[in-house]
Every structure is written in structure tokens, then in C-alpha cells.
């Protein structure tokens, strides 16, 4: 008898849980229907309206996506769910088929994805560059360095604090590659600190600690008004920051929205979008944050600069 009662309690609790979730679902379905209806009024609604875009924090933190996504949605009728994470995580989402389309900036990690058939239709979108920022007093003398590798060597020699993203993002991957090229293993070093956070948050930390860090130019310009750090090194060819857009292969993952992803790739490399990218940020920062590159070859970028 007791056991029966026990079981009934457990059963009742489980049923209540399921009922609770079910209620929420119904509500959601209602919401979706409404959304779909609204869409039908605007444009011809695509068969699968939901499109998940996995991208980097830098495209969100600069505000570029807030400009581009509404235009894309209005044109095509898709609803874009933008998940802004580090490039490492964005690529992982693609690899697991959790995202439909990727906008990322770590070419060395992207190529294996294309080769293994996870990603298709990979297209060059735009570039900007990475910069090393640090305190104006420049205790490590990075300003006198001509290359990024030389700059990092000076920081290591001086034991000056360097704040790293440490989040496997595109910027983090670039930084790690530069340390490797400099033949320095900064891990475990007293002066090397990892935040595990996005670029904006990492710049804030570096600013408070009067430390050096590697940043993309866009996020730095967006943060400039809050910080005392300044650019100590820029313009070295390896510091180029290249963004590609690519579809997650719908043949490999049946749940992936292939049509929507294709439309998004086409949108990103279209003339109109490229013009918006070119003008973006000029009125706020006095200089562009990104340079459009659609149709160019990646080799032209790296050799040209």
C-alpha cells in the first residue's frame, strides 16, 4: 500500500511536469502561428521560416548584424535567430548541425569543415584587422616593434600583463597562432591571464589591469569611448581578420534549413549588402569597421596588404 502511494506521488509529479511543459508548448505554438501569419501578410513565407545563424561576438558587439538582419528578414521572409558566440563554438554548432549558416573569422579552422563536407558554399564576405592595444605608457615597448610576433616577444620579455580571450574564438585562435609563431608558451605564465569572455568584456578587463590584449579593430572602436588603452601595434599582414559566410550542408543534416542558408549567403555577398558593410560605422567612428571583399580571393587579401 505504501509503495503504491509512493509510486502514485512520483507519477503525479511527473504528470504535472509534463502537463506544465505541454501548456508552455501550446502557448508557444500559438505565438508561432501568429508570427507566421504576420509574415504571410508581409511576404511569401518560406516553407521553413526559421534560420539559425551562428556567428561571432564581434559582428554583434559592433552592431553590424542589427543593421543587416532586419533587411534580410524583410527581403526574404525568413526569421533569423542569431546566436552570437565565439567562432570556435559557432563552428562546433555547425559541426553538430545545430545551426543553418555560419558567419565566422577563423579561416584555418573553417577549411577542415569544408573539406569534411560539414560546410558548403563558403564565401569571402569582408575583412578588418586585429590590433594590439595596451597602456599609453607602453611598458613593454611594443610600439617600437614592426611585426605582431616581435610585439608579443617584447611583452613576454618584459613580463607585462597580457589579457587573452581564452574562449577559442576567432580572435583567440589568431592570438594562440601568433604566440606559437613567436615560440612562446604563455600558458601558466604569471603575466598571462585568460578571461574566457567576449572581446568587449576582455577589453574592459585589460583596461582595468592596464594590460595588453589582441582585439579586432571593430570592437576596439566600439569600446574606445570607455577605455584608456590605445593601439600599440597595427598593420602587420598576419593581423588580417577575414570573415567568411558558409552554409551547413543540408544533405548531411536533414534538419538544416538549406534554402534559408543559401539565401543568407547570397544576401551577404550581394552588392547592396556589401555597400552597407562598406559604409557601416563611418558616421559613428569616422572610419569603416569592415571592408567588403565579396568576389575576391583570400590570397589577394593576404598578399596585398
Amino acid at each position: 500500500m505504501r509503495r503504491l502511494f509512493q509510486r502514485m506521488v512520483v507519477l503525479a509529479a511527473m504528470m504535472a511536469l509534463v502537463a506544465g511543459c505541454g501548456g508552455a508548448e501550446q502557448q508557444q505554438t500559438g505565438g508561432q502561428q501568429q508570427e507566421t501569419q504576420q509574415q504571410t501578410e508581409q511576404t511569401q513565407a518560406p516553407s521553413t521560416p526559421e534560420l539559425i545563424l551562428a556567428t561571432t561576438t564581434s559582428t554583434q558587439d559592433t552592431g553590424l548584424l542589427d543593421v543587416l538582419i532586419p533587411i534580410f528578414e524583410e527581403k526574404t521572409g525568413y526569421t533569423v535567430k542569431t546566436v552570437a558566440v565565439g567562432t570556435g563554438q559557432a563552428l562546433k554548432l555547425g559541426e553538430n548541425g545545430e545551426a543553418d549558416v555560419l558567419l565566422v573569422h577563423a579561416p584555418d579552422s573553417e577549411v577542415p569543415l569544408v573539406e569534411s563536407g560539414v560546410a558548403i558554399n563558403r564565401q569571402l564576405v569582408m575583412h578588418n584587422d586585429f590590433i594590439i592595444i595596451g597602456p599609453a605608457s607602453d611598458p613593454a615597448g611594443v610600439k617600437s616593434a614592426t611585426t605582431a610576433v616581435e610585439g608579443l616577444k617584447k611583452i613576454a620579455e618584459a613580463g607585462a600583463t597580457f589579457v587573452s580571450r581564452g574562449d577559442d574564438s576567432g580572435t583567440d585562435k589568431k592570438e594562440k597562432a601568433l604566440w606559437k609563431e613567436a615560440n612562446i608558451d604563455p600558458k601558466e605564465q604569471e603575466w598571462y591571464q585568460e578571461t574566457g569572455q567576449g572581446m568587449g568584456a576582455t577589453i574592459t578587463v585589460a583596461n582595468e589591469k592596464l594590460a595588453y590584449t589582441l582585439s579586432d579593430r571593430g570592437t576596439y572602436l566600439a569600446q574606445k569611448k570607455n577605455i584608456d588603452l590605445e593601439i600599440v601595434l597595427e598593420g602587420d599582414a598576419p593581423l588580417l581578420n577575414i570573415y567568411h559566410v558558409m552554409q551547413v550542408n543540408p544533405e548531411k543534416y536533414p534538419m538544416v534549413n538549406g534554402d534559408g542558408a543559401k539565401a543568407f549567403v547570397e544576401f551577404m555577398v550581394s552588392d547592396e549588402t556589401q555597400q552597407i558593410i562598406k559604409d557601416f560605422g563611418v558616421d559613428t567612428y569616422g572610419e569603416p569597421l569592415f571592408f567588403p571583399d565579396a568576389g575576391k580571393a583570400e590570397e589577394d587579401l593576404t598578399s596585398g596588404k
Partner: protein
Amino acid sequence: MLSSGDAELVRVTLLTLRVAGTATLLSVVVGIPLGVLLALARWPGRNFIISLVNMGMGTPPVVAGLVVSILLWRSGPLGRLRLIYTPTAMIIAQFIIALPLVTGYTLAGIGQLNPKLHDQILALGASRWQLFWLLIREARLSLLAAVIGGFGGVISEVGASTMVGGNILGRTRVLTTATVMEVSKGNFDIAIALSLILMLLIWLVTYALTRLQQGGRPR
């Protein structure tokens, strides 16, 4: 975010209320009966379940978020429902956070009532349902504290909402996730404004609940 106008802000605020409100409501519907049941039940294993509830009261939102994410990802067991990055996903995660809070507070509140009351009500010939309602009425101060506790727990969390909601503009962006984002963008002024709105919202809701809680009290 504020640059896109007040409409966006209103939308984020309303979504915050809708998600936290629904999650709290569901957790109250489930948690209060569960808490009463656990308080009255006398069988082995009861203490074990209570210890689970008490542990659940300390569930870190990110843990709830991670569990719900794993379930709802396309590759996960419930992936077909396509719920990840929707307000529903956030409601489910927040429900998991709030349920132990509501259950635990209810359990404590009912447990504090004089045990003789229970016997007396039954002796007067009350049915089980009548017993349930009388106890709830008797413990209403604690039960409203349970509601306030559950609501406070979910409206202030950010980890689970970010993970299962994705902080998507116009869809799953709530006040807490927007605040984190604005801080990382370096827009501290906007972040402070959002925090103030959030605090005001919490105050308004808890004030209403407090009125309800203290209203029936003899002065």
C-alpha cells in the same frame, strides 16, 4: 539596443515578464501541491525526496540551462520540437529553477503549522480536499513567500536564458541578457538603465504580491 527605439525596450520588458511569469505560474501550480504532499506524507523515502528538493533550491541556473539545451538541441532527444532559442525553452529552464524553490518554501510553510491543526481539521470531518485548502489558507503567508521566491529566482537569472534562449533580438532577449550584452559592448549607460527597469519591474510585482500577502491579515 535603446537606439532602435522604445518599442524594442517595451518588447524586451514584456517578454521578461511573460517568460518569468509563466515559469513562476507553472512552478506554483506544480510546486505548491507537491510541497503540501511532502509536508503531510509519512513514508520512507520522504526525507530523501526532501533533500532533493532542498538541493534543487540551489540549482545554478547555468546547470538548468545546460540540461535543457542538451534536451532541446536538434541532435537532442527533443530536437524535433524545434524549441531551442524560443521563449518556451526559457520557460522550461526557468520552471526547473523555480519548482524546487516553490516546493521547498511550501514544504517549510506547511511544516511550520501546528500538527494538531491537521488532526483537528480531519476530526471535524473534512475531506482531503478541504484539508488541502484549509492548510493552504492557513499557510498563505509562507505560500506567497514561495511565489515571490520562485519569481525572484527566475526573473534575475541570466545563465539559463542565454544558453537556451540565445539572447536573440526581438525573440528571446530579456532584460538580464540584454544587460550582459550591453556591458560587453561597453554601453554601461544602457546597461544601468536596463538594470533600473529590471529592479522596478521586480519591485512592482513583489509589491503586488506583498499586498496580497499582507491584505488578509488582521491589523
